[in-house]
């Protein structure tokens, strides 16, 4: 069983070992959110996508702000790892280029040893819950502040994708449920086809002003 580093432990001048009740923590788990009355700013807060989003001529983009994003790393050949994740998340770990959808979360395949879970549940609780089940070699990283999810929808949404990315978004190559990470405009995005005309785009915070400008430029002229 793994112990967590909590804030009061680190303030303690005692070495954790000296406390008999607790073993040294292997990983620093931190509740990074506050329940206090503090203003949060999403990555696209200063762009046209903020609030109600932007739409025109069969294309709509809105932000799904402040979700919890957690990176999961582990060995796909390690059955304990897989079952721990699946038990904790009550979801299947998706196969290559696939996603799995739960009531409150989506797990995206990212790389042979990397997945992303995006959930509307608390990041700290989600991570703690996962860590409780996990053992062996794995990593969990809270990246909720570093990225955001956009929902692109509408009958012309594929046109925006074809302008932004060289990838083949045709249904025959990109069925519902598939996910890829690819070039998007001059940055990158994780792109998931949620339904025929609905796409989730996960973009990095520092590129989000640029990408929002690009999307706005496309949508106003489409």
């Amino acid at each position, binding site marked *: 069983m793994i112990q967590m580093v909590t804030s009061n432990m680190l303030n303690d001048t005692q070495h954790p070992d000296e406390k008999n009740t607790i073993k040294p923590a292997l990983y620093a788990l931190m509740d990074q959110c506050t329940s206090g009355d503090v203003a949060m700013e999403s990555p696209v807060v200063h762009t046209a996508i903020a609030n109600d989003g932007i739409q025109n001529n069969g294309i709509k983009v809105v932000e799904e702000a402040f979700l919890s994003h957690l990176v999961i790393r582990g060995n796909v050949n390690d059955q304990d790892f897989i079952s721990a994740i699946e038990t904790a998340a009550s979801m299947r770990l998706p196969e290559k280029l696939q996603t799995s959808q739960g009531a409150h979360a989506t797990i995206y395949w990212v790389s042979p040893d990397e997945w992303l879970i995006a959930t509307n549940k608390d990041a700290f609780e989600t991570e703690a819950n996962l860590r409780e089940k996990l053992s062996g070699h794995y990593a969990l990283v809270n990246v909720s*502040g570093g990225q955001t999810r956009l929902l692109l929808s509408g009958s012309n949404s594929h046109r925006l994708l*074809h302008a932004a990315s060289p990838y083949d978004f045709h249904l025959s190559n990109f069925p519902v449920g598939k996910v890829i990470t690819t070039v998007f405009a001059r940055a990158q995005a994780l792109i998931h086809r949620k339904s025929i005309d609905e796409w989730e785009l996960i973009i990095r915070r520092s590129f989000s002003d640029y990408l929002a400008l690009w999307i706005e430029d496309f949508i106003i*002229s489409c």
Partner: protein
Amino acid sequence: MTEINRLDSGGNIDRTQKITFTFNGKSYTGYQGDTVASALLASGVNIVARSFKYRRPRGIMAAGVEEPNAVLQLGKYEATQVPNILATQQEIYEGLTCRSVTGWPSCDVDFGGLIGRFMGKMLPPGFYYKTFMKPAFLWHTYEKYIRKAAGLGRSPKESDADRYDHVHHNIDVLIVGAGPAGLIAATRLSAANVRIMLAEETTEMGGSLLSSQQDINGKDAKVWVKAALKDLQANPDVRLLTRATVNGFHDHNFVTVNERVTDHLAEKAPTGQARQILHKVRCKWIILASGAHERPLVFGNNDVPGCMTASAISTYIHRYGVIPGSRLVLMTNNDNAYHTAIDWYQCGRTVIAVVDTRPNPEGKIVQKVREMGINVFAGKAVIDVRGRNRVTGVVIADIEPSGQAVMGMLTTLDCDTVASSGGWSPVVHLSCHTGCRPKWREDIQAFVPGSHRENILFAGSVNGHYDLANCLQEAVNCADQIILNESLTVQEVLGDFKVESALEEPIMPLFSIPHTKPVMQSPKQFVDFQNDVTVSAIDLAVREGFHSIEHVKRYTVMGFGTDQGKLGNINGMAIVANALDKSIPEVGTTTFRPNYTPVAFGTIVGRYRNQLFDPERYTAMHRWHCDNGALFEDVGQWKRPWYFQAYPGEKMQDALNRECLAVRQSVGIMDASTLGKIDIQGKDAREFLGRVYTNAWAKLAVGKCRYGVMCNEDGMVFDDGVTACLAEQHFLMTTTTGGAAKVLEWLELFHQTEWPELDVYFNSVTDHWATIAINGPNARKLLSELCEGIDLDKDKFKLMDWRQGIVAGVPARVFRISFTGELSFEINVQANYGMHVWKALQVAGKKYKLTPYGTETMHVLRAEKGFIIAGQDTDGSVTPLDLGMDWCLSNKKSFSYIGKRGMARSDCLRKGRKQLVGIQTKSKEVMIPEGSQAVDNPYQPLPLEALGHITSSYFSANLNQSIAMGFIKDGFNRMGDTVYYPQPDGTIITAEICSPVFYDPNGDKQHVE
């Protein structure tokens, strides 16, 4: 102007839509569907340009993209100027304004024409090299006038008023060209459930069928075209593009297609619409059905307006209802061109004669023309043209069957139009873009595409199949080959056809008509019209020793124009072959490169202009910086505050002085979010750190941080930063702003390829954390006002410790690390809270005069302390030893860390290496420009022996003097020595070598209470 050459009927133009446009300041009319060229010809305009070198009047010669002369500057307004538009491609719209790109003051009256007529002999090939070589300093004077005279249009001075776009496609089959071959291939494939794009360069699909009199399936070919298009349009998997030029064939079947979406509609595209689209197409297969261009024959004065290619005349008649003259002489070496004589005759105008260079043409079509009562002169050739601004007649003579000489009596025929046909040149360009060479076919006297690795197939006249039946059959075969190769199922067999074969007699191998006089004395025989390259110029180049076709091209400039020699190059190659007494395939072609036709810059740029050109990366606090006077510096793609203006117009040095003093006297605040941050987890994380950093990591305790230097395998510093131990198997590494992506890749590289056995994972958390650095003697007081849960006592929270707590109500990790030498805390919070915490600090900081500062102040402050910046004070040739950072190397580690062996090479250990030291100018107010080289004796003979350069140089407000760091050979042993920095303006800055730590050498400041 009345349209004197407009036929009463015919042509695919809308005669109910009359359009007025302006050419060279004069108003002309035409109809919807006309090109500028067809409308000008309809109005009887002869001269559309002045030639490049000789300023000779030039007319329209062709009807398509191969046109060399009718090059226009388009646009009514400055922002809508487009240079080098072809009159043969540009459709007219109401109000279109254009002018010739050549000719001064106008192309009708050109003063340069006099130069051409009387000084032509002084303008041989290579005349730039021969004439303007000396004196060299005058070249800039010559150049200005030469460029003005050359004139190939001008770029707009205002930014483009239009939008452009890029669209990516992933398809199964791209068909290039919607002539008979392209259309039937598309039709056949459309039943096979594949994604198809059919791209046609002109405004209308159908190609040669639009001006053909042949039947398909017993009906007019145009009816077949219409039906085929209707079926294709109904198929959602078929994308039809017109006005779309396939310009580049790149590796792995990647193709670029330039679609002119609104060029034909108006001066400016309708609001919101892209004027042009660049389609980037990745396709499994390409069917190249790009057709062929007719090449003219070369003869004396063959550039006089009224000389045209035969097929162009037929195109003007059939597609535009325009006949560009009254009395035609047609010269040909093949059967195909006889169609033009028939077309002309059927318009009710006079065909003076068909001059056939073949001794005894007896083909079916020749008989037909003879039966119409048209004179056919066999074994004869046009050797010269009469007239200056318009053809008035031709001189004909007998030509030997070998084509090598003319003889006998000269006859003059009166006419106003000379059509010529030297056969067809397949448009092989795209097939050559990936490096394949075309192959010569003797039977048709033409280059066809050579063998290919790629999935590219050839159909129709591009492959030398000029006969309609063969052309269609080959296209069908291409489609079937794809169906077979891809194991496609076909719902229905489409594209069966019945066409009568029209057998033609062989073409005569002839490109240039000899004159009775030797080449150098004969009238000018033009090969490349746009660049005024003549037969005698090519002849001279060969005699001067240029034997490779690539050399001849560069010496004569043949094929260098905006037309890239589409009309003239094959003739030029044949003439070179003849002069060298070689065969044409032995001489070969010049290299065909993308793009096939000129592409507007706007199209290449697409929507990636202004702010979309390159991503600007912002931190969570960026908006605050914008609102508070920040000027920004680019660091990679990041926009970082450079310095903040306290009031509009504050000078940079004043702002820096103010910021620097504020940090050292009270407290300053900086956005450090851009530093790269890498989360490292795993039981071997510690071991991994020990291998990639030069120092030791085995004993770093939880709650502690350590500075580390990363080297390449060669021992040279490439990045540095602080890494914190978050938990036993969990670390947070920071990197330089610019090095973040590179360092993460470096770690992954070694993990994935060298040490996969180490259990460790790396993930970027750069964007996840907002990092706020507060620096200065009042930093602790400021933090204590907002911080809960951390004991800030200096002995409890020491330098190089980190703690977790609450700052301004937000969970935070606070690092006590310092890059300024002051008491300093770096507060990390989840980025969504970054702005909140930043603003809370501003409010709480008021009483301490909290001052925001940017990267420049950071640079000054760290330089006062002698801290390096990887990438500024290092350049990939500097070891930690050269930086005096021996303390950062651990030789106790069992593993030979990256860089250890590299920096132990003999050259890295030798005496006399350049070492980083402080540099203090003798006059304390003088600053040494960065990059200045040090010398021991500025008066030594040249070349001066340089000791090393200045890497960092600033004015320090805190010390009220200039400070600098730089490299000096053996610098560590030369403390106190004087060195000199000679400047480009002749002055010499005298300076003394010193310690790089200018401020607080004992480091007391970072431990203040």
